[in-house]
């Protein structure tokens, strides 16, 4: 999933200060799962903002909504009845949702309430870690199911570097060395021979090397 973290309160206050009426929009997908921008976080942020402006004695109205999926035009359409009653939208979805709102409502300011982080997985309760950077040409079959592009600090396709220490990355002892993980799994799979196949220089075009990407499925496209 896509992970995110809410921006600091003072940033959000600065964002909404120029406006009197705000539509605060959460999303029921990834940001709900990582507790950054679901229904619950929308309610919390809404009261925090109201409290702040009440203390300041500034008139402030906020309407809360949480869409099924903010990156999907079908659901963004649900905002239509409310959009004219607000001065700006504060979105708690990932950057994709924020941009869907910007695309649909051309004359309404939209502000991001979260920092979109990465595509990752939950390692344990409350901990998420990066797993994939969407390189567009998945090579996990060649690296024992562990991605060196997303998980090696130097994205080495032929690691490990000389700084790998006791399973940890030289950059930070809290990061597992991706190449230690790959090696351990190759061993467990009885495939250590595979390690010596040199992976060639990557073609980055399927990543972002050929500009912003798009998928067109002729069978589905309308």
């Amino acid at each position, binding site marked *: 999933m896509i992970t995110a973290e809410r921006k600091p309160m003072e940033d959000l206050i600065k964002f909404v200060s120029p406006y009197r009426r705000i539509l605060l929009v959460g999303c029921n997908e990834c940001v709900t799962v990582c507790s950054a921008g679901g229904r619950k976080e929308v309610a919390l942020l809404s009261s925090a903002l109201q409290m702040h402006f009440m203390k300041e004695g500034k008139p402030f109205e906020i309407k809360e909504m949480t869409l099924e999926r903010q990156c999907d035009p079908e659901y963004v359409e649900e905002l239509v009845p409310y959009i004219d009653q607000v001065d700006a939208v504060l979105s708690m979805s990932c950057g994709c949702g924020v941009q869907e709102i910007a695309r649909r409502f051309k004359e309404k300011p939209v502000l991001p309430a979260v920092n979109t982080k990465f595509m990752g997985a939950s390692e344990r309760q409350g901990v998420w870690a990066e797993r994939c950077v969407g390189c567009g040409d998945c090579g996990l079959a060649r690296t024992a199911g562990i991605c060196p592009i997303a998980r090696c600090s*130097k994205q080495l396709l032929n690691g*490990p570097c000389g700084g790998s220490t006791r399973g940890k990355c030289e950059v*930070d002892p809290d990061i597992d*060395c991706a190449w230690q993980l790959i090696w351990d799994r190759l061993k467990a799979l009885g495939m250590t021979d595979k390690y010596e196949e040199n992976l*060639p*220089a990557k073609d980055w075009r399927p990543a972002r090397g050929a500009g912003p990407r798009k998928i067109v499925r002729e069978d589905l496209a309308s």
Partner: protein
Amino acid sequence: MKTESTLEKILASGQLAVTSECGPPRGALPSKVQEKAEMLRGCVDAVNVTDNQTAMVRMSSLAACILIKQMGLNPLLQMVTRDRNRLAMQSDIIGAYSHGINTMLCLSGDHPHFGDHPGAAAVHDIDSIQAVEMVKKMRDEGLFQGGQKIDGPPKMFIGAAANPFADPFELRVARLAKKVKAGVDFIQTQCIYNVDKFEKWMEGVRERGLHEKVYILAGITPMKSAGMAKYMKNKVPGMDVPDDVVKRISGVPKENQAEEGIKMCLETIDRLKNVKGVAGFHIMAIEWEHKVPEIVERAGFLPRPSF
């Protein structure tokens, strides 16, 4: 002979090669490069010129190599994959060769996190092994990485680094095999303090016959002080400094520690001279370049062969 490189000629002749390094200055003063390089005249076969080492901005390796070449010495161009994509690397390689620089070292480089621009993006378009493949293709096939023909291909003698002490130890020989497969000509290793472990690695190297396919230069860095030994042990990733090394240098009075450090590195050189597959030494005296001639002399490597 694949190239005109003096280092290649000396290694091919079967004599132990000696290299050292010169870290370019953090500014535009050519004299700083020249002074450092001058100390190495006549006592080494090639002078490694580091490329933004420890991820700190310095005069470019290429520019400093040219200055050193103009002095009549043999510079060795270091190039990290951290700061350049494949286009920039190849243009620097042909540019270097156009100035007669014919020996280089392909590295991935320290992470920007450790340097003075921690907010910089690391490029890593290709890795060090792919860089070796690229330089070899440029030399042997006369082709750019992208497949187009080069008009006047650069004939580089190609080096890479190896750290026998990093983890997991059990794949360190296999990683060297990958570099050999990529086409590397010579290796300069991480500084060796744990000689037993290095010898064990060399055993693995010989078992696979890799020492016959690549020249291995053993990395040597003299300790200046007990403080440096402790720092290297605890703070430098991938460095293996055994306790008895720290104990020995800490055991002598401060004013004698530098001499003790030199003695220790000479003992290491002496021991490694007899290890089959060691083709030479890479002496990295960090900010202590003026000691290199003394070390080379006391190790019995003078005079250097000339070609």
